[in-house]
């Protein structure tokens, strides 16, 4: 039976369903979706028709935000000096076992370790953030004004579902606060205090991290990614999360 056929059936409700039956059904469902074997919680959501990356989808809340913060990463300039990470740790009190931003390393070709590629990674502050969708307590949310994906630490129950859902591995569980922590573009530590740049962007000696606003046509970030002949990419576009962190070369 196809899903479209199921949709035509009348809903029988759950009142008459014995709990034993319900449990069996759930267990079967979990086994199928592979949740026990490391599948993500996202695999529990109902199946939908396959769609291309280009399809227009609604964003969480109004879009664009004002200001609509973005970070443009000039990837080929990154030399993994990790001053950004040091600045982030200092500014946001990140423990040694976690990170809000990190640098990944990649060989250009298999077995060839000359001129490796370094790739800075941080929260992409997605317009359709999977972490926000799965959070059971709305502890993580899209800020209505800035679109920054924020954390309400008091509401976090530490279930780590958001960590599993994040396509960018941009979250960690803070053992001290017993809550998940993540990049918030230094909103509490810098932006709200009038500073224009995040700590990492300010610390970068190679101008890799360009922090700015997508709604401001005069901002460097806007101009960098609006050059017609420039190749711009995002990480894992297939997730449909609509990230706000862009990558370019030079």
């Amino acid at each position: 039976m196809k899903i479209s056929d199921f949709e035509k059936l009348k809903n029988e409700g759950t009142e008459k369903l014995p709990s034993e039956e319900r449990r069996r059904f759930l267990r079967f469902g979990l086994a199928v979706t592979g949740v026990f074997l490391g599948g993500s919680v996202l695999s529990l959501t109902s199946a939908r028709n396959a769609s291309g990356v280009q399809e227009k989808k609604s964003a969480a809340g109004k879009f664009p935000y004002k200001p609509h913060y973005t970070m443009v990463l000039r990837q080929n300039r990154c030399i993994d000096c990790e001053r950004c990470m040091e600045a982030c740790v200092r500014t946001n009190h990140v423990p040694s076992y976690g990170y809000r931003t990190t640098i990944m390393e990649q060989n250009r070709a298999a077995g060839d370790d000359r001129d490796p590629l370094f790739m800075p990674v941080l929260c992409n502050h997605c317009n359709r953030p999977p972490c926000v969708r799965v959070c059971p307590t709305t502890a993580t949310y899209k800020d209505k004004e800035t679109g920054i994906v924020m954390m309400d630490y008091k509401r976090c129950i530490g279930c780590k579902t958001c960590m599993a859902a994040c396509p960018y591995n941009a979250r960690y569980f803070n053992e001290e606060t017993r809550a998940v922590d993540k990049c918030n573009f230094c909103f509490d530590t810098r932006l709200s205090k009038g500073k224009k740049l995040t700590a990492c962007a300010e610390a970068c000696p190679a101008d890799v991290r360009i922090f700015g606003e997508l709604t401001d046509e005069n901002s460097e970030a806007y101009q960098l990614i609006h050059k017609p002949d420039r190749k711009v990419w995002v990480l894992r576009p297939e997730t449909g999360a609509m990230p706000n962190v862009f990558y370019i070369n030079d």
Partner: protein
Amino acid sequence: MKIGNTKARKFFNLLLFSLVLLVFCSQASGQDEEDGGSIIFTKPVKAVIFEHSIHTEQGLECDSCHDGMFEMEAGVAEQNDDFTMASLYEGNYCGGCHDGDTAFASNTRCTACHIGVKGYERLTGGTKDSGGGH
């Protein structure tokens, strides 16, 4: 008896292997002494590698760089305030050759020399105390 034979052969093989290794290592270290080996700069950014062998293999002599661009003693250059990319672009230090004519320009192929903190940790055998997000 048979087992003893295998053991003896194994021991001999091991001996041979260690001998070869010894000869190889002593040769390698001898070469290092000759040309200064690998220099790792950690200032002003962590980290930049300079391989003497790559440069001498291309026919450069000691006095091609010493004592003009660099002192003989390792680590002197990075104590200077002008040991920066801007200075390289003006033809100082590495920029003396890495100008786009003699060798690739200093503002290209960043990671050919900049090995980063990760490269530094790998070479020095240090382990970074930084976990993953998960």
